[in-house]
C-alpha cells in the first residue's frame, strides 16, 4: 500500500499548503475585504481547521481508507463513482493554482515574456510525481520543510521593516457582509483538508497524531496570517494591485540596493516547493482514477491528466481573470460541498464492516 508518514503529513500542512495562498489569493481577498483580510482568512482557517479536526476524529476511529469506507456503505460501484467524481474535482481544483503559478513564474522569474510552452516542463515533472503516489508527496514534504522554513522566514524578515501594521485598523470596518463574502469567495484556496480524507488508512494513526497535525496546520495558518498582515501593512490601499505577492513584499529591503534582488534566491527556493505543492491535487486525481480502474498502472492516467491540464493551461492562457472570477465567485459552492460537505458526511460512513484489506495495511 501507498504509505505516508505522520511527520510528512504534518510538514504538508505546515510548510507546503501555506504557499498556495501567497500568490494571487492576498490581492483577491483584499478586493473584497480591504483591511479586514485577516478576519476573512481567519474565518477560512477556522472552517477548514474544524473539518480537518473531524477527519482526524474519523482517522482515530478507523484504519480503513476512504475508499473502503465508501465501499462499506455504498458498495464497490458506489465507491468508484464517488472517486470518479473526486477525480474530476481534483482536476478542476488544480487548474486555477497552475495558472496562478504559471503567471507568477513568467512575470517574476523571466525578464521578458516567454512563450506559453515555457511552462510545459512543469507537467513533465508533475507526470513523474503522479506516477509515484503518496510516498513521493511525503518525501517531497520532508525536503520542503527546511527549504520553506529558511526561505519563508527570510522573506518575512526582509519585508517586516517596511510594514505599517496600523494599516490593518480599524478591525471590521468593511462590514460583516464583505468579510463573509471574502470568506466564501476564497473557498477554492481552502480545500486542502480534503487531502487528509484520502490519506485515511495510508498512515499509521498513533496517540497524539491529531494534535500534531492540527498543530502543524495552525503553524501553517499563522504563517499565512502573518504573511497577509505584512502584505497589507506594506501596500495598504494599493494592495489590490499586487499580484504575485510573495515576490512583491521583500523587494523593498535596502540590502537589495547594493546586492541586487537577494530575495529572489528565497523566492526561487519557495517556487520549487510551490511546484511540488501544486502537484498534490493532480496526484490525488491520479490516485482516484487508479482506484476507479482497480489500481491500474499510474502511467496512463498520469499522462492523460497532465496532458489535459497542459492543454487547458494553454487554452486559458489569456483568460486568467475569467477563470479566477469563475472559481472565486461562482464555484465556491462546489468547493464548499467537496471540501467541507463530503468530509463531514464521511463521518456517517460505515466503519465496522469487514472489507478485503491489503496485506500491509496495518504495518
Amino acid at each position, binding site marked *: 500500500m501507498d504509505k505516508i508518514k505522520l511527520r510528512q503529513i504534518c510538514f504538508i500542512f505546515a510548510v507546503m499548503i501555506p504557499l498556495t495562498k501567497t500568490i494571487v489569493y492576498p490581492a483577491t481577498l483584499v478586493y473584497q475585504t480591504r483591511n479586514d483580510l485577516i478576519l476573512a482568512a481567519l474565518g477560512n482557517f477556522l472552517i477548514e481547521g474544524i473539518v480537518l479536526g473531524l477527519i482526524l476524529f474519523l482517522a482515530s476511529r478507523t484504519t480503513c481508507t476512504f475508499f473502503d469506507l465508501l465501499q462499506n456503505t455504498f458498495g464497490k460501484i458506489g465507491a468508484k463513482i464517488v472517486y470518479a467524481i473526486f477525480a474530476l474535482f481534483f482536476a478542476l481544483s488544480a487548474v486555477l493554482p497552475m495558472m496562478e503559478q504559471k503567471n507568477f513564474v513568467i512575470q517574476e*522569474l523571466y525578464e521578458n515574456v*516567454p512563450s506559453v510552452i515555457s511552462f510545459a516542463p512543469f507537467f513533465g*515533472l508533475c507526470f513523474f510525481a503522479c*506516477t509515484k503516489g503518496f510516498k513521493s508527496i511525503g518525501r517531497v514534504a520532508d525536503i520542503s520543510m527546511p527549504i520553506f522554513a529558511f526561505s519563508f522566514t527570510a522573506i518575512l524578515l526582509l519585508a517586516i521593516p517596511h510594514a505599517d501594521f*496600523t494599516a490593518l*485598523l480599524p478591525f471590521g470596518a468593511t462590514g460583516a457582509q464583505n468579510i463573509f463574502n471574502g470568506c466564501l469567495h476564497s473557498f477554492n484556496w481552502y480545500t486542502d483538508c480534503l487531502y487528509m480524507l484520502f490519506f485515511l488508512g495510508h498512515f499509521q494513526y498513533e496517540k497524539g497524531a491529531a494534535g500534531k497535525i492540527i498543530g502543524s496546520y495552525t503553524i501553517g495558518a499563522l504563517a499565512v496570517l502573518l504573511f497577509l498582515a505584512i502584505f497589507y501593512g506594506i501596500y495598504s*490601499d*494599493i494592495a489590490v494591485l499586487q499580484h504575485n505577492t510573495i515576490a512583491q513584499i521583500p523587494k523593498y529591503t*535596502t540590502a537589495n540596493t547594493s546586492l541586487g534582488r537577494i530575495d529572489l534566491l528565497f523566492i526561487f527556493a519557495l517556487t520549487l516547493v510551490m511546484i511540488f505543492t501544486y502537484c498534490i491535487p493532480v496526484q490525488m486525481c491520479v490516485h482516484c482514477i487508479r482506484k476507479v480502474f482497480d489500481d491500474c498502472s499510474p502511467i496512463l492516467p498520469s499522462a492523460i491528466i497532465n496532458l489535459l491540464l497542459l492543454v487547458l493551461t494553454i487554452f486559458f492562457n489569456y483568460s486568467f481573470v475569467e477563470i479566477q472570477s469563475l472559481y472565486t465567485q461562482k464555484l465556491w459552492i462546489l468547493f464548499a460541498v467537496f471540501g467541507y460537505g463530503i468530509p463531514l458526511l464521511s463521518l456517517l460512513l460505515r466503519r465496522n464492516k469487514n472489507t478485503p484489506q491489503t496485506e500491509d495495511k496495518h504495518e
Partner: protein
Amino acid sequence: MNKYWTRIFIAIAIFLLLLFFSNDFGLIDIQKTAVIAAIGIDSAEQENLLDVTIQIAVPDQGGNGKASNLTIRNAKSVNEAITELNRKTGWYPSLVHCKILLLGKKITENNVFDVLNFFLRSEFIDDSCLIAVCETRAEDALHATSPIGELTALAITKVLSSEAQKTGAVSVMNLRDFAKGYYAANTSSYLPIVSVKQEAQSESGSPNNGSSQSAFLPCSIGLNPNNADTYSLVDSEPVPCGNFWSFWNKLFPLKRNPLPICAPCSQQADAASQKGSQNTPNSDIFEASKTMLFYQGKQAAILETDETLAFNLADTSTDYAYGMVDVIQDGKPVTYCLKMKISKKEQKLKVSGNSAILNFHIRANAQVADSDSAQGVIDIAQTARVPEHVLHAAEEKFKKELDAVMQKCADCNSDIFGIILKLYRFYPSRFNDLQENLLQNVKTSYDIQFDTLR
C-alpha cells in the same frame, strides 16, 4: 516502474526543470533592447498631450554606461510614447531597470495620476522606483550633465537615495508610497523637487559661452565635433552645441530619428565621460532639498529646505541630520551647526471632546559640528557638549519649522502627517464627526527635547 525508467524520468525531470527556470535558455538581445534607466514626463505645448523623455542606458565594452535621451513629443499617453520609441528606433523598451520617474512641474498642476496610472498597471516596472518633480522640465533634468558619469538618472538617484533620506536633506519617495498616499483616505502625498544647478553657467557667467552649457540644454541632432561617429539625440529646437557646429547644423540639418547611440553633445560632456566619476567643472549639480506637497494628485504647496528637514526629522526615516541654529552669545549673533541624532520620534493623535490634538514626541541628541565664531580650545575639545541655550534654540527652531509645515498642510489640505488616517484607524467612531476640516482644526502640541552627549 523499474529503476531504469525511474532514472530516466529523474533525468528528464531535471532537464525540464532546467528549461523551466532558464526561460528555455532565452537571452535578451541587448542590441535590440532599450534598457530604460529613467523616464521624464512633461506637459506638451499642446494641451492634454505629453512630452516623454526616455533615458536609455547603453552599456559599452568597458563596462561603463552611456546614456541616450529620446524625447517623444505630443504623446497622448505614456504608453503611446513608449510604443513610439519602439516604432521609431526598433529597440524593444525594457522598463525593468527604470529606477526613476521625473515629472515636469507643469504636469503637477493636474492630477499626476493621469499619467502615473500607466506605471501602476504595468507589471514590467518596479513600483520601488523613485519619483520626483523637477523644478522646471523633466526633459531638462535628464539632459543635464551628470557629475558622476554618463547616466544622469544615476546621479539623480544618488541624490534621492535612502542614505540621503536618512540625513534629512531630501524627502525621498517611491512610486508605491506615492500611490498609497493618493489612494488612501487623505489623498495626500509629497515628492522631492529636483533642481539642476547649472554650475558651468555660474562659473563662465554666460550660458552660451562656448559649449559649456550645451550638455544641459536640449540640443539638436548633430554630429559631435570630437567624434563624428556619435550623435546627440534630442529632437527639439536646435540649440548650440558649440557656435560653429550649431551654425553648421542649421545649414545642413541631419536626418532625424537616428538610433539613440550616445548622450554627450559637447566636448565637455565627452571629457566628463572620460574622467569617469570625477566632478568636472562643467557638470551640473542636482539638488532636492525642497518638497512638493500633493492633494488629490495635484501640487498643493512647497516645503522649503528647513521645513523639509523638520518634516523629515519628525515623520520619515531620517535619524541623523545637520541643522543650523542662530543664537545670541555674548551680545553677538553666532550660528551653530549641530549634528543631530534622533533617538525617538512619535506622533500621536488624541481626540478630546470635539477636538483632535496631534502630539509630536521627539527626542534627539546633538553635538556641535561647527560654529561661525572662534572658540576656545576647551570648547573645541568638548565639541560633543552643546550649550543649553543652543539646545533650547534648536528646540524652538524645530517647533517653529514644524508649525510652518503644519500651517502649509492646513492651507492646502495636504495631510502628509497622515492625521486623517490616524483618526480613521484609531478613532473610527469619531471619523465622520471630525474628518471635515480636520487639518484646519487639529491642535498641535510639541514635546521636543534636544539633549547633549554627556
